């Protein structure tokens, strides 16, 4: 564990130094958050009082939490494949794989900065909504955090599967293209899933993002207890329990295949 933490720290410092070397981009990314929150505020003014959204405190809290969790979804989903692709582009993947590290450690550590950055951005989303537009947060923060961790693990397993495709086929990852797009559309980021036709609602509940958003919104905006969020909690735990080991096995196989074919550095 100490080795893992030391390695993760090394990757975080490396990525922080590289991010800070692009100062303008760093500042603009943070500024963008305020633009999004402001846009959501004005949208909520147009939408006004909606019976479906009333239990969440209106459209702004609903969408702000949706965006914050969707950020995690996106990070879990594409951070691994993007990290691998970036190392391939830099030409540093072989140098990393030459270090006596577990493959899992390399994959997780490569994505550490992205998750840290996403946490910061998501926190800014929620903070901006609270401070600027006075939305009210309720519920147990530990429960909300637990749900977020499970949601991230479920997303991450899809992300590692996506990275396996990148490792072998370099581009044209079907998981990222299909599941990523479908999840954002049907998962309930910008509108409640109940607004969808029945058959699409059934599809939506096959996606981890829908359960993640349901659970976190229920805790943070409605003050739900552990008993109230049992269904999304169990669904996310099942996604993570099946997805994480399966995706790691796939990734190991993908790397072995790239090693056999001599295409580790190709992109």
């Amino acid at each position, binding site marked *: 564990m100490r080795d893992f933490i030391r390695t993760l720290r090394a990757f975080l410092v*490396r990525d922080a130094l590289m991010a800070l*070397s692009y100062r303008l981009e760093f500042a603009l990314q943070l500024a963008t958050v305020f633009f999004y929150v402001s846009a959501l505020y004005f949208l909520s003014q147009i939408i006004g009082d909606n019976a479906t959204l009333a239990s969440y405190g209106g459209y702004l809290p609903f969408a702000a939490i949706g965006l914050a969790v969707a950020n995690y979804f996106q990070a879990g989903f594409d951070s691994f494949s993007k990290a691998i692709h970036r190392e391939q582009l830099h*030409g540093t993947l072989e140098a990393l794989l030459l270090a006596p590290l577990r493959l899992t450690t390399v994959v997780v550590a490569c994505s550490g900065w992205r998750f840290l950055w996403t946490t910061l951005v998501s926190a800014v989303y929620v903070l901006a909504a609270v401070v600027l537009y006075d939305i009210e947060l309720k519920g147990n923060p530990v429960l909300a955090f637990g749900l977020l961790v499970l949601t991230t693990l479920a997303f991450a397993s899809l992300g590692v599967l996506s990275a396996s495709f990148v490792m072998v086929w370099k581009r044209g990852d079907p998981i990222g293209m299909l599941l990523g797009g479908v999840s954002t559309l049907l998962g309930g980021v910008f509108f409640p899933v109940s607004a969808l036709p029945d058959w699409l609602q059934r599809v939506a509940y096959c996606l981890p993002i829908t359960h993640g958003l349901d659970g976190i919104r229920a805790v943070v905006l409605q003050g739900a207890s552990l008993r109230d969020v049992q269904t999304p909690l169990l669904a996310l735990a099942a996604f993570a329990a099946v997805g994480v080991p399966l995706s790691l096995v796939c990734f190991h196989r993908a790397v072995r295949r790239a090693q056999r074919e001599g295409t580790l550095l190709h992109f």
Partner: protein
Amino acid sequence: MNDDVVVRLEAVGKRFLPPPAPWRALFGRPQPPPIDALRHVDLEVRRGEILGLVGDNGAGKTVLVKLVATLTEPSHGRVQVFGLDSVHASRAIRARIGLATCDERSFYWRLTARQNLTFFAQIYGTSGKATRQRVDALLHEVDLAEQADRPYRTLSAGNRQRLALARALLPDPELLLLDEPTRSLDPGAAKRLRALIADRVRLHPHCAVVFTTHDLAEVDDLCERVAVLTQGRCVWAGGVSDLRRRFGGDDVVTLRVRRLPALTQADLRSGGSALALRQLGNDDIEVQLPVTDDHGAALHALLTKIVRAGGEVVACQTARRPLHDVCSALIVGADGSPPEPRAQGGSHA
């Protein structure tokens, strides 16, 4: 495995298959053939030696290095490093080897040389003060201390190569793999890098080095043993001096002769001896005589003939036949095709 043997390749082959292209079959176009990068290679590397790995482009040098570094897997045969199988014990092997390639893209261009090296030191298992000390020591060892805080992208090709060497030395490797480390360096920088490598082996006799290059003068300068690869096959693995001895690598006596009558020149040319004559830019000609066990008598007879004919010897020197000539003779057979393997395995032939 003998403790002295660091690397052993047994009948190793590496075949790269083309990516599947069903549309080619659909349109009746032939599938591209597989590429055999290595074919049945046997080789050993021992502690305390610098093995030069030479061959033309595409001969399989880099593939061989990557196999030993566990970055790719053999299609046939077995690669053992420190007695461990390269496929099943790759992590244990990687902890004990260092690899430096000529690829400038293997570092983070936005970070400084020190930041790059610190990052790699940490993922190699050092932390805190030990990392700083190790990084400082290596930057000093490769003579990069003054450039350490410059971004990698601003370093010269020579300094980038030094940094690659420093990174390869991070784990204090028992096996150092250097893939064309001097490719983009000027002669001075290349010479300094070779001196660094030679020093490393002198000071760490438990360490072995595999050094790939196109420049055979480097092999002459640095290596005791050489493996010659051509079209994926190892056609020689043994001592550099043995290679010279077996494949016409004799030293030659070169004379520069002025005003040698044409008749005498014709006489020397038709003499059927091992003499080689070459017309130089002015009236001078160059005469080469291989150094053999009885070359003294032949040289005496030659000088007598030249002087009696009125020729004037203006220069005389003995030189080693360039290793390049020796290897060229080995790589390309008389009919232009590669010769059959002549010396294989790790024997110190």
